[in-house]
Each structure stands twice: as structure tokens, then as C-alpha cells.
């Protein structure tokens, strides 16, 4: 009996000592003065005016993402969900404005491009310092972009047109390009366009090399409150009392749980609710909603090698566009062409039509249809995505009426993409969103001939279309009117003539916020990002 107890006690002691030592989770780690964390409670804010040194507003903005936030802390290679934090820690030369469809000044105050769109000069903002204390100079900016290009991770390809970068004086940055490209748009990208102090970059998130309004306070991977940010006092934009000085990311997988937390005021922002909850939210006291069209649309790519043109056109007419958008209850808006609204190249008036008779007529031309031979189509879509499941359900039951059976297979992205690269399906259902606010991304990635298939999953091989796509960057940089005509022409060829794809809807973001959040503007160029610096709370 004795040695049993000995063994048990030994085991317990072992596990205790083996685990993490006395590392304090809640306390601050960066050299902030202690006073900062023990912020005074709400009632003292009234007399904040009398004691300017006291904390203006210690309310925390709580963002409830449904996925883990941070996968990669390096601003050069970061390419996933952490954009919702990075966009507030780091800044780029420019920021895209969806209303004006133009890139606007941020770290660069102004910029000029040569006539041929190959020489660009940016004037940098004065008085900007990184969180590491180092001031912003053209030399540091040059180093940052060159490091991003060298690492070639994430969306580094956006700098492909750049030949050389120069820093003639501390506040001037010049680029010379291999071919004309809209560098102001490229510089506004959500990924790989940050200007940072390379010395501040650290993979485990204890410090950052950003110049943005917030800096990292606490990162506890895998915990419910995974990440907290705090205001950077030295920010060039300065601080006003009603702005949020602290931000917390509280990961909530279940949309229903997020909705409860929002109602109880424990959370200030939920990026996506399902349509039913969104409807209820608009009528709930203490909650406000914001619905904005995004730059993400749903695409059905038809296998141009296996399916006859008439069949592809029939499929375009067999989608119940209005029924789908109705069932989505606001989560999507009918698309017109390949390019979502808010981007140069969006052509209104190309809304597709649901017409089963025409579809049947087209099918009969190829010997299919009710009295023809039965047509079987294989379709792959994203597993676990309710909206895509809804589309597939509607399409399957519609095509059943015209003797076309759809074998739909939900798959995880890596498996679906792998099968797609080998031409394994007739219809490939997926979302697409650009890395920076430029319609070029759809055409370059999905409809340009590729030797080794990557995203051209309709396997389109059309010389004319390739030539038009190649000309787009130059036109966008130099002559936007001509660029618009080129986009319209391309969409006519791809959608009408080749019928290589169908675009059922553009996803609309359905955000829900606490009633006390003021001034929130949803910028579709930066998916799911809230610019905490631009919102206020009374």
C-alpha cells in the first residue's frame, strides 16, 4: 500500500514542476508604466477634463472572430485571419476607399506616376515613429518592402511589377517598374504592403515593428481572449478621449454564442451573423447592424474542356438567382458580371436570368433534356458552408426537372482544390476575393491560360482573352476609362461567349455591433477588418 501512494504523489509533483513556470498571464509585459493597467473606473471619466493626465476612456472594444486570430505575426508573409489585428498595428503607404474607388493617403501624403505608369514617387508623412521608437524614413520603408519581396510569402506577388526601389531623401520613395501597374492600388493591399521596422518583427508576438495606432498588449494562443491590443501613445494621429484605448479579440466559434454575448454587452462586434439572427438583431434594443456589399462573390466555374458550350449556357440559366438571394435573406446581393460593385471594372446591367425553358432548349440542342439522354454532372463545393449548401440544393432540384442529375460533393478546400487542379469535376463552386482593390485579380488568377492549373478551374485556354488580361495593369495605371471598356469586353467574352462561369451573388457583410459604437465604416477592401482608431464610444 505504501509504495502506491509514493508513486501517485511522485507523478503529481512531476507534472506540476514540468509545466510552465510562474509566468504571469494577465500582467503587462511591455515596459508600460504600471499606472496604465490599473485604469480608474467609469465614474472618474466625467472629471477626465479636469485631470488631462488621467485616462480618457478605458473602455475595451471586444471583437468576436469565429476563427483563431493569429497564424503568422510577420507583416511580410501574413496572409490569413490576423489581418483584423495587423491592419490596426501596421500601416501601408495608402488605404483604399470603396466610395471613391481610389487609394487615399496614409503613410504617403502624396504620390505621382510617370506618363507610362512605370515610374512612381511617394512623399512620406513627417513625425511618424514605429512602436520600436525608430522614426519612419524612406530608407526603412525601402528595407521593409525589399524584405517582403525577398521572403516571397503570402501575397508578396503583388510587388511583381517592381524592378528597383530608391530613397533619394529621407521622405521620398521612388519605384521603377518592369511594366506599367497601378502602384497606388498595390500599396493599399490588405496583405504584404505594410511599411514596418524589420527589427520589431517577432514570430511569437511579444513585440511588433508597426507604426499603427495600436500595439500588441497580450497574446495567449488557444485561449478564449486570444489577443489584446493597447493604444500606442506616440501615434502620429494623436488621441481623442472618446476613442478606444484597448482592444480584445474573444474567439467565439458558434455564431449563436456570439449573438448572446453581443446582447449581454460582453462583446462589441460580431463580423458575421446568419441571416435570421441578422434580421432579429436589426430589431433588438442595444444592438446596431451594418450591411455592406463585400468584394467577395460566389463563382461556379464550368469545365470548358468537358462540357459543351450550350450545356454551360444552360447551367447559367438553371440557377434560381432570385430564389437564392431571397433564401439568403440579405447575406448576398444579385451579382452583375464578374466584378463586384465598388471596384473599377464593375459593369452594371449584366444580371443573369433564371430561365428553365431556355436552359432545357439549350440542353436539347446537345441531345440531353427530358426526352434525351440523362446528363450527369459532378460538382464540388465547400464543406460546412451553409450558403453554398443552399445554392447546391436549389441547383440540384432545378436540374432534376430537366433530366440532369448533379452529384454534389462537399469537400475541404485543400481536397477540393487538389482535385480541381487535376480537372476532376464538371462544376467547381468557390468564393473569390482580391488581395488588393483591383478587379485584375479575378481575371489574372481564374481566366488566364495556365500551364500548371492553379486557380483557372474552368480550364479556359483562349489567346484573345489572355492578351486582354495582360494589358489590364497598364490601362488601370494610365487610362481608367479604357481600362473599364477592357473589363466589359473581357466579361462579355468569358460569361456570354465562352459561358465559362456563373456568378450567383456578391456576399454582403452582415455585421452586428453594440449600440454604443459610433462611426463604424465597413471597408470591403480589408475583409472583416475594423479600424478601431476610427470608431468612438460616447
Amino acid at each position, binding site marked *: 500500500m505504501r509504495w502506491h501512494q509514493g508513486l501517485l504523489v511522485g507523478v503529481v509533483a512531476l507534472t506540476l514542476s514540468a509545466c510552465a513556470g510562474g509566468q504571469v498571464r494577465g500582467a503587462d509585459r511591455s515596459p508600460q508604466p504600471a499606472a496604465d493597467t490599473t485604469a480608474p473606473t467609469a465614474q472618474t471619466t466625467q472629471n477626465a477634463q479636469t485631470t488631462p493626465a488621467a485616462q480618457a476612456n478605458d473602455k475595451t472594444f471586444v471583437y468576436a472572430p469565429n476563427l483563431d486570430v493569429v497564424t503568422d505575426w510577420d507583416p511580410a508573409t501574413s496572409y490569413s485571419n490576423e489581418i483584423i489585428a495587423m491592419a490596426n498595428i501596421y500601416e501601408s503607404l495608402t488605404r483604399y476607399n470603396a466610395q471613391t474607388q481610389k487609394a487615399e493617403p496614409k503613410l504617403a501624403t502624396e504620390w505621382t506616376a510617370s506618363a507610362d505608369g512605370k515610374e512612381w514617387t511617394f512623399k512620406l508623412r513627417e513625425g511618424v515613429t514605429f512602436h520600436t521608437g525608430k522614426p519612419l524614413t524612406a530608407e526603412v520603408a525601402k528595407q521593409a518592402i525589399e524584405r517582403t519581396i525577398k521572403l516571397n510569402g503570402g501575397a508578396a506577388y503583388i510587388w511583381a511589377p517592381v524592378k528597383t526601389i530608391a530613397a533619394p531623401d529621407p521622405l521620398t520613395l521612388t519605384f521603377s517598374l518592369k511594366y506599367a501597374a497601378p502602384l497606388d492600388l498595390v500599396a493599399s493591399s490588405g496583405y504584404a504592403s505594410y511599411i514596418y521596422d524589420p527589427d520589431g518583427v517577432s514570430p511569437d508576438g511579444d513585440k511588433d515593428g508597426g507604426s499603427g495606432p495600436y500595439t500588441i498588449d497580450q497574446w495567449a494562443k488557444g485561449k478564449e481572449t486570444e489577443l489584446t491590443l493597447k493604444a500606442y501613445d506616440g501615434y502620429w494621429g494623436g488621441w481623442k478621449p472618446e476613442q478606444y484605448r484597448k482592444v480584445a479579440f474573444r474567439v467565439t466559434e458558434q455564431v*449563436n454564442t456570439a449573438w448572446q454575448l453581443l446582447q449581454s454587452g460582453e462583446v462589441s462586434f460580431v463580423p458575421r451573423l446568419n441571416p*435570421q439572427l441578422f434580421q432579429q438583431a436589426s430589431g433588438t434594443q442595444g444592438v446596431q447592424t451594418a450591411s455592406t456589399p463585400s468584394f467577395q462573390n460566389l463563382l461556379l466555374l464550368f469545365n470548358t474542356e468537358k462540357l459543351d458550350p450550350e450545356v454551360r449556357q444552360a447551367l447559367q440559366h438553371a440557377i434560381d438567382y432570385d430564389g*437564392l438571394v431571397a*433564401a439568403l435573406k440579405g447575406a448576398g446581393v444579385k451579382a452583375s458580371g464578374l466584378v463586384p460593385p465598388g471596384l473599377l471594372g464593375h459593369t452594371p446591367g449584366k444580371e443573369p436570368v433564371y430561365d428553365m425553358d431556355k436552359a432545357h432548349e439549350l440542353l436539347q440542342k446537345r441531345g440531353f433534356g427530358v426526352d434525351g439522354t440523362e446528363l450527369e454532372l459532378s460538382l464540388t463545393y465547400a*464543406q460546412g458552408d451553409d450558403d453554398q*449548401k443552399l445554392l447546391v440544393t436549389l441547383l440540384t432540384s432545378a436540374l432534376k426537372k430537366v433530366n440532369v442529375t448533379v452529384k454534389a460533393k*462537399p469537400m475541404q478546400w485543400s481536397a477540393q482544390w487538389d482535385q480541381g487542379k487535376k480537372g476532376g469535376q464538371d462544376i467547381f463552386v468557390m468564393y473569390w476575393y482580391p488581395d488588393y482593390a483591383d478587379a485584375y485579380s479575378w481575371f489574372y488568377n481564374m481566366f488566364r491560360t495556365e500551364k500548371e492549373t492553379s486557380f483557372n478551374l474552368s480550364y479556359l485556354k483562349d489567346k484573345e482573352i489572355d492578351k486582354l488580361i495582360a494589358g489590364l495593369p497598364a490601362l488601370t495605371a494610365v487610362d481608367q476609362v479604357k481600362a473599364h471598356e477592357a473589363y466589359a469586353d473581357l466579361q462579355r467574352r468569358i460569361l456570354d461567349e465562352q459561358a465559362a462561369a456563373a456568378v450567383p451573388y456578391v456576399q454582403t457583410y452582415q455585421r452586428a455591433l453594440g449600440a454604443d459604437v459610433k462611426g463604424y465604416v465597413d471597408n470591403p477592401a480589408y475583409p472583416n477588418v475594423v479600424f478601431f482608431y476610427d470608431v468612438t464610444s460616447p
Partner: protein
Amino acid sequence: MRRLGAFLLALIVLASLAAPWLAPYPEDAVDPLSSLLPPSPEHWFGTDQAGRDIFSRVLYGGQTSLLIAIAVLGSSALVGVALGMTAGYAGGWLRDVIMRVTDIFLAFPALLLSVALAVVLDPTVTTVIVAIAATWWPWYARLSMSVAASVSTRPYVDAARCLGVPAPLIVVRHVLPNSLTPVLVQLSLDAGGVILTAAALSYLGLGAQDPIAEWGLMVEQGQSLISTNWWVVTFPGLAIVLTAFAFNVLGEGLRNALDPRRTVIK
């Protein structure tokens, strides 16, 4: 107790088998305009997001669940008893090998192995059956092995051996009949567990896929609507509880009737 279980189960089996006639709407009648209607005389259990009648789908879902339960229990009992018999009767190194393999599968958390398998084979009802059977047969192997081992030491089995009766014949004629009772009891007890695991798999999106009516899947689809349209998630969930409960009650009753003395750990 047993009568309650038998009655409940008969009710569920009948309702599911008669689904095509009983159900007011076809299984996958999609009607986007009447999506998410509350329970009403036309739709006793209301409709789901795609406008399908939940009452009909719960009935059809019964068919899926029973199919899965029977297929899983049948196949795993078959494999398990066969392996268990050979191990129990043969003994020696063969027994050890089989037992070690059984231990490995037993150590494997049932749901995780099912999930791993379901990820490999694309998600359909057959995947669910294969995935769960792969984690369920070890129970029957271990059970029938212990029974077979004890039965094969009985004198009349030795006598048959002395007469030169070939081993397989002995196993089939003597060892098997005596081992069936505990296995049968265990089968009825496990049915509830299989239905829960199948529902969990579909809930994770790795089991049956739309438009097949499967209770676990329906709960998953209705889950995010719980505060706006409560009925979408409630009725399939209740169906699972009721069926699992019926199986458990029947199993308990069977165990007491057939095998009062043996307490079998599942």
C-alpha cells in the same frame, strides 16, 4: 420495463419505414419562399432554412438512423465475433495478436477514429457505417473471446476434440451458440450509442450530407437558428433522444431477461 422499450422502438421503426406514406411532403421538397416557417397545421414541426418540412425529414431521418444502426451493429458483430471466436478457441500467439490489435482499436477514441476515417472516405452514409463499425467491432471481439475461452474449456468441447472433430466445426456447433447470448445483449445496449455517434459525426459535417435527411445533420443546420427559429434544432434532437432511449430500455430489458447474472461493461 422491457415492454416499454419494445413498444417505443416498434413505434419508431414503424414510423420510419412508413415515412414515404406518412410524411406529408417528399424528403427533399425545397421551397425557398416558405423557409423557416414555425410549426403549423400544414407543417407540424415547421420548415428549415431551405423550406423543407421538418416533420417529413425527421421521419426519413429515422430510416437513415436505423439503417446506420443495423448496418454498423451487424458488420461489427460479424467481424468481432469471428475474430473473438478464433482468438478464444485457438489461444496461444494468435490470441495475443488479435487481442493486441483489439486493444489498439479500443484505445482509439471511437469518435476520433470515425472522424479520421470519415475525412479519408468522402462523407456519405456508408462512410459513417464504416467509420463507426471500425471502432465498435473490438467490443464484440473482446466479449466473444472471453466467452469462447470459457466455453471451450467445457468437458464436452474436449470430448469433441478427442473424437477428432475439426476445429471450425466445434467452434460453430458448440462454442458459437453459447456465446451468442451475451453478444446479443450487448448489441441491443450499443444501438443507442451507435445512433449518438452517427449523429455526432453528421453534426461535425463528416457524416451524411445534404439533402439526405439525418438527425445529427439537421441539428447542426438548425443550431445557429436556436434563438430565432427554435423548432429547426429541437425536433431532430428529440428524435435522437427518443430513439436512443428506446434502444437503451430494450437493451436493459433484454439483458435482465436473457442474462440476469452477467454485468457487462460497455
